[in-house]
């Protein structure tokens, strides 16, 4: 990659849980600023644990996590879970502006930025809707708006679209790429899906399990934004085959 310092680098990171599970061991990874990194790996290989380490929700048991350009700060990291994880008692706007509210920003600014974030994910006009009045895809959009409202430098996404139908997932994939492009934001996107990771990422990290570690790193050499018809192109198919083979090697290892 470039000679510039990465956004964050993990060196020899291990994480052992209280019950003795070694979720990650000897993990080395540098995440470049502005890249769209996808993390691909079998269930239980420590993908979520890695995201939680990056978010600072967990501390590594061994190794170090460095931020050569400086830590993005409390509001510099956004997190999107597999479930929308919204507050059911609050409407879409209140959910979207939550991070700003926790930061103690003035109410007017919270509302304005919350509205803008909702509009950016295509939910203008749904500010007053409660989560249960929204479809699964729309709830995920609210969740995305909430993560984007702080304009984070690093967006961590843990299989965010896994529970959605394929049509909605493809649309959200394109919208996410559009939001990422030109934003300067770094995205780390965990997924089980080879197809999704190839479509979205500029680079794929394939992980192996027991203990979780990096098995392979694949740059995705394809134009961004993805050209129309990319999903059915031969280039896409070849990239998917390559990622698939890497995943299989990782699972056999």
């Amino acid at each position, binding site marked *: 990659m470039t000679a510039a310092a990465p956004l964050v680098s993990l060196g020899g990171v291990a994480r052992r849980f209280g019950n003795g599970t070694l979720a990650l061991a000897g993990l080395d990874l540098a995440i470049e600023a502005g890249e769209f990194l996808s993390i691909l790996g079998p269930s239980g290989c420590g993908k979520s644990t890695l995201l939680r380490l990056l978010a600072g929700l967990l501390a590594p048991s061994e190794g170090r996590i460095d931020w050569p350009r400086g830590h993005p700060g409390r509001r510099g990291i956004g997190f999107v879970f597999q479930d929308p994880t919204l507050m059911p008692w609050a409407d879409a706007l209140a959910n979207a502006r939550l991070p700003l509210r*926790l930061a103690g920003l003035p109410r007017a600014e919270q509302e304005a930025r919350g509205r803008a974030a909702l509009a950016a994910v295509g939910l203008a006009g749904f500010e007053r809707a409660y989560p249960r009045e929204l479809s699964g895809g729309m709830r995920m959009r609210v969740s995305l708006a909430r993560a984007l409202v702080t304009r984070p430098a690093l967006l961590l996404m843990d299989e965010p679209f896994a529970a959605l139908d394929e049509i909605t997932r493809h649309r959200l994939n394109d919208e996410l790429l559009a939001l990422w492009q030109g934003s300067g934001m770094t995205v780390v996107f965990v997924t089980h899906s080879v197809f999704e990771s190839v479509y979205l990422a500029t680079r794929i990290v394939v992980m192996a399990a027991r203990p979780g570690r990096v098995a392979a790193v694949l740059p995705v050499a394809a134009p961004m934004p993805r050209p129309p018809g990319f999903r059915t192109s031969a280039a896409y198919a070849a990239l998917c085959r390559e990622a698939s083979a890497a995943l299989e090697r990782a699972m056999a290892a």
Partner: protein
Amino acid sequence: MSAAPRLLLWLLPALTGLAVLAGWEALVRHFAVPPYVLPGPVAVARALAEDWPLLSASLLATLRIALLALLAAVTVGGLLAVLFAQSRWVERALFPYAVVLQVTPIVAIAPLILIWVDDVTLALLLCAWIVAFFPILSNTVLGLNSADRNLEELFRLYGATRWQALWLLRLPAALPFFLAGLRVAGGLSLIGAVVAEFVAGAGGTGSGLAFRILEAGYQLRIPRMFAALALISACGIAIFAALGLVQHLLLRRWHESALGREG
């Protein structure tokens, strides 16, 4: 649901009730049961109307104790729950004693309380409170600890203070649990008040509905006894329904339990 079946939904239990009352009255008349054994509904209604000044005053007295006890139960139960949620140690130290209070039958403690506390109203209040506060405490503790784990992590990620996590996350998450506890406590506060009045009434004091029942029993005024009984039931139903309405109004926009059948 269309209008006609919905009307039927309400009409049906009302009709059942009327049929039972009519049958009761018919039986009492047919077998000429004396009113001091079993009064018919008409006699009870007459007693209710004639003794209304007396009974309504007693009703207010009982209701006042029950509602004040409920208020105290909400305050103390709610505050204790928040305290428990803030500190596991406090919970460890105090929760067993809340359970002890809960499992000891109120009829067994009421005489002691009446001896120790000079003010009768206060003693009654204390008895009713002991009965009512536990469901609020235990439900609210459960609710405060049942917030979505991922949301808790999110709050942590954004550096929420303890106070913010309590106010914006844990309290709203606990609300449905609290309200369910409140509905149970509403009925229990009335039961507690009536039981305490019985115990106190045996000692010759008090003017609540339970006391009227005892008094009517001594005087063999059975229709009045039934009238007082009907008032207690009506009171309980009213409290339950009112708290149900509160529950519905507070939860209807977001909680599954408040979803209309029609979705």
